[in-house]
């Protein structure tokens, strides 16, 4: 049901853009909305970054997935239990660009009284296909925002259409992103566990991106538009001299652009910020060198604790009888400063961030 609602919302968005172009609102859909959405995207992401950066990470809590650095003759797993900053950078690289943790994925099946584990790399593959294709497609679109188009974008475009199938030649990433998206969507719909944990807000971005991809693919291969005019518009946006070109551009382009704008505006305030959030993940971006390099918690506060003096006084007779040495040098501790989250009036001082 949630999937259905998400789909209807995306269809609604498409209809809005279509009607908008019929009503001649090209300036709104071609210039105003994209600008606003882009601004929301960038400012929104910066806001999210700062909102995370304002909160301290009190403890160094890396999840170690390999051998720690200890004795010199023990082989240290530099990627899975990084000790130095450089090793952390490598670990993050593998995590962010190659989805290292997803690659570990397993599936578990219960057969009678036996648990059986199998490799389950499909999710990794689907995710890689989707994310990498998305990234390359984004880069490719730079050709519409620059003039002259930089050489590396031209080359990227050339490589992506390497197969030279059809006119215009089909992009490999177009096929791969569709495969990735459809896999991710079907997985949510079919796998009972994933289906059970999915909200509308999990389906919506999938359908939205699917809408973007399909409208883009249609525009390239079926419902043709005047690419020259499109680039006049997009280049105008990138150079802050926006104009709606004299030659007409088909509605499909405005639908595509509107869906992209919605995605951009939605991005910073949804789960999609995982793209930035991953950089902040304390279980991945911290070094497993806790015993060698101390981590400082800015809100560390002294706590109340029982002292040896009190303990020894309590058990003095028993200890003497048992022949356990008594420490006669120890003195009662003076009342020390302490705070507690649980004692009203003793709350630890709030930290400034």
């Amino acid at each position, binding site marked *: 049901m949630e999937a259905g609602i998400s789909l209807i919302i995306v269809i609604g968005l498409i209809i809005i853009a279509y009607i908008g172009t019929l009503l001649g609102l090209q300036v709104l859909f071609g210039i105003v909305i994209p600008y606003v959405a*882009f601004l929301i*995207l*960038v400012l929104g*992401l*910066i806001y999210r*970054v*700062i909102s995370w*950066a*304002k*909160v*301290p*990470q009190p403890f160094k809590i890396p999840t170690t997935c390999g051998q720690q650095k200890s004795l010199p003759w023990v082989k240290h797993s530099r990627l899975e239990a990084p000790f130095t900053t450089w090793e952390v950078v490598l670990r993050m690289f593998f995590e962010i660009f190659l989805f290292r943790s997803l690659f570990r994925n397993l599936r578990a099946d219960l057969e009678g009284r036996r648990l059986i584990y199998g490799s389950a790399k499909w999710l990794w593959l689907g995710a890689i296909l989707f994310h990498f294709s998305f990234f390359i497609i984004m880069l490719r679109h*730079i*050709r*519409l*925002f*620059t*003039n*002259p*188009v*930089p050489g590396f*974008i*031209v080359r990227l*475009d*050339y490589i992506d*259409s390497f197969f*030279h199938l059809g*006119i*215009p*030649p089909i992009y490999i990433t177009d096929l791969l992103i569709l495969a990735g998206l459809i896999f991710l969507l079907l997985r949510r719909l079919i796998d009972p566990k994933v289906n059970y944990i999915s909200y509308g807000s999990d389906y919506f971005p999938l359908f939205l991106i699917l809408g973007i991809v399909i409208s883009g693919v249609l525009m390239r291969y079926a419902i*043709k*538009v*005047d*690419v*020259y*005019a*499109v*680039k*006049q518009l997009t*280049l105008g946006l*990138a*150079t802050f001299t926006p104009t709606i070109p004299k*030659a*007409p551009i*088909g509605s499909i382009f405005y639908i595509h652009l509107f869906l992209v704008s919605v995605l951009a505006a939605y991005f910073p305030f949804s789960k999609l910020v995982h793209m*930035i959030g991953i*950089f902040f993940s304390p279980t991945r971006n911290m070094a497993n060198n806790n015993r060698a390099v101390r981590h400082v918690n*800015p809100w560390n506060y002294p706590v109340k604790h029982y002292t040896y003096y009190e303990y020894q006084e309590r058990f003095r007779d028993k200890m003497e009888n048992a022949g356990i040495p008594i420490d006669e040098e120890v003195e009662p501790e003076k009342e020390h400063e302490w705070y507690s989250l649980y004692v009203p009036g003793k709350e630890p001082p709030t930290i400034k*961030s």
Partner: protein
Amino acid sequence: MYNADKVIPGIIILILFFTLPIWLNVGRLEAVPEVELPKEEKKCVESKEFMRREHMKLLDDWRIKVLRENQHVYLSGEGKNFKISLQNTCMKCHENKEKFCDKCHNFVVTHPDCWTCHIAPEVAKKWK
């Protein structure tokens, strides 16, 4: 803010990443090119809008008709007949590839396959 030494460069990279096209244009931005249209002929085989959108499909159609189906005449939407030939029909009016085709194709970065077999008129002239 904590970890400012990493967060602030991060924010800068983020902004640079999303505004990449702007920086790629700096100092090298060129005006949108204008194609040189034929001086005599005012009308192409189909309407101007159609040609701008769909010329690549039309040319591909022509190629298939000539090479595979041995058809050499194209009946346009308006009912006029044209000889199917890039070199002799299209390039008769658009007599300079560089000033016509390339202008747009370089601008939007598309790679037509026509000239792997055909020879541009301005090149052919030199050989004559």
